[in-house]
């Protein structure tokens, strides 16, 4: 941490007009890849909401007379080793995926934001301690740590979410701190301080809102890897438990039949890849649009 921690005089960064973010966000229309990512995510979100209507079959009902059917007219994505319709399971699985990423985002977003902003605003020892701690967590192998947390807490979707959250907030905190270091020297913050605004007021009303857009972009990018970690935990049997149609767990059960019935393992992977790629494309594009320093 060699960043400048001194409170230099105010710099001429004025608070952007409220409309500027909207204007910048609208630029996504000109970015075909980012737009595609956004549309895919909207599509998957719709599927998650409308799962009961869209799914042609019950995702957990077994049909032992119809096991390992190749993809065809009756079962677009085939059936698994217990005769369950894979497409229906995938459709219901979007709910699990979105629940996972939304919960993780709701945990690590505010957590990283608060730690980062407080660290950047207070500076000095608070900053040193918080950032050293962040660096330490950042230097851990997150997947392996999440694995052993999940193993210790007992397998399940809830523990998978906790395990992932515990290891993925540091990048958000670092970003929020970096933003705060710029924003806190802005003229409007100095003006608010002159008017007698308290530290809490400055932090929560003047500085934090300015950090939110970039935190959201970073969250979008983080979600791509959160999906992969969650699927990995599910694949190893530490995420959502059967018969729940979690994509990673579906790959795991399909692995045993991969040479005879490839679709059981392949189909869920396509779903994971699509959502993760969509998040990456969207996050990548948003970063380019919102942060002119980050030239693509």
């Amino acid at each position, binding site marked *: 941490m060699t960043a400048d921690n001194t409170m230099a005089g105010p710099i001429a960064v004025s608070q952007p007009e409220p409309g500027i973010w909207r204007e910048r966000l609208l630029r996504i229309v000109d970015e075909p890849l980012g737009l595609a990512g956004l549309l895919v995510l909207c599509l998957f979100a719709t599927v998650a909401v409308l799962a009961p209507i869209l799914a042609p079959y019950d995702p957990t009902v077994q049909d032992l007379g119809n096991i390992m059917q190749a993809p065809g007219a009756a079962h677009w994505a085939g059936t698994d080793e217990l005769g369950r319709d894979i497409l229906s399971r995938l459709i219901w699985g979007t709910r699990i995926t979105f629940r996972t990423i939304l919960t993780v985002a709701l945990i690590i977003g505010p957590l990283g934001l608060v730690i980062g902003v407080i660290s950047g605003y207070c500076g000095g020892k608070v900053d040193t301690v918080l950032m050293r701690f962040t660096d330490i967590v950042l230097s851990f192998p997150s997947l392996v740590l999440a694995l052993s947390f999940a193993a210790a807490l007992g397998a399940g979707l809830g523990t998978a979410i906790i395990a992932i959250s515990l290891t993925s907030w540091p990048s958000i905190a670092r970003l929020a701190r970096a933003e705060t270091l710029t924003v806190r020297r802005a003229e409007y913050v100095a003006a608010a301080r002159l008017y007698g605004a308290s530290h809490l007021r400055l932090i929560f009303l003047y500085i934090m809102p300015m950090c939110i857009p970039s935190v959201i972009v970073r969250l979008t990018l983080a979600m791509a890897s959160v999906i992969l970690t969650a699927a990995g935990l599910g694949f190893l049997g530490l995420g959502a438990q059967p018969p729940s149609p979690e994509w990673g767990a579906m790959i795991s059960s399909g692995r045993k039949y991969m040479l005879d019935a490839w679709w059981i393992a392949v189909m869920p992977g396509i779903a994971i890849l699509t959502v993760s790629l969509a998040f990456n494309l969207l996050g990548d594009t948003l970063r380019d649009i919102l942060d002119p320093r980050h030239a*693509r």
Partner: protein
Amino acid sequence: MPGPSRSSDPGRAFFIALPLPVEAAAPAVRRPGYLAMPSTFAFRILRTLGMFVLSLFVLLALTFVIGRIMPHDPVGLIVGELADAQAFAAMRAKLGLDLPIPQQFWIYLQGILHGDFGNAVLTGTPVLQDLAQAFPATLELATLAILLSAGIGVPVGLLAALYRDSIVDQVVRVLSLLGHSLPVFWFAILGLIVFYGQLQWSPGPGRIDAFYEGIVPTRTGLLLVDSLLAGDSEVFWNAFGHLIMPAIILAYTSMAYIVRMTRSFALEQLGQDYILTARAKGLRLRRVVVRHILPNIAVQLITILAISYGGLLEGAVLIEIVFSWPGIGQYMTNALLIGDMNAVVACTLLIGIVFMALNFLADLAYVALDPRTRSGE
């Protein structure tokens, strides 16, 4: 609260303060050790080392906690559910679970320093022995993977930077985002289905065909090295055949990161005046890349490669199970499934320590090789 806070960077404070005896007194009295430090360079190295030791300590504390919050009561597992309270208490005392937590932690630390991770439930042998057997397999896989991803990723990243916004750049961008979004265990299954099941180009799962197993004596545990040492090319090529697909699959996922970072490092250099000068005096593009860009981004690349190498060790956990690769990943996964926390904790520690040591070496390389940090700017 905000205010001048020189204490956050004591090294800097010291050297700024050095010509001013009045100010120098404060840090020097509080931390006399700094007086002996010859330069900022040594201080930075020491600080990196301190950070590494601190991280190790936190990792040890975390694994201690993980080992203590296990879902099953270890005492109950050993004495059985029907045992009376006395037997329970005796076993608790024997396992040291009745001691105060700090003392338990101290005993845990001592055990680890002596290489004692307890016995594995599955094999009954000391965990350390199991790890020593499994780790070379993972190391071999991750090492070939990092060689592949660096060997391909760095040139491709340079190309993407040189031909920025061209079709090459766009293709590279999509391919690397794809690699970033792939669930590696699924990609491994896909690889097996296509190249083993359908095309039969690749040998099946496992580290070597059963026919060749145990032919060459184990010296390093790395099959490729062992077979070369024994001069047995047949074993070498068989082991290499088994290794190549998992390594390529693993390499692809980390290549995405290497390509993107190389590209952005190179772009940063390409925008500098000295490149313009070099081009203006008529240097060929290839020469500019080799003589100017590469040396200038070498330090950053080393950092990225070290981080990727650590990431590959982690990624191996997920694909070893697919390829029946007898490494740390498979060992850990099996331990996870039966709740063998001794083994889980030991694997977490081993991967964590290697991972953090690589990070540490990268930081060290950064401090040591970058002239800007050496001059103490």
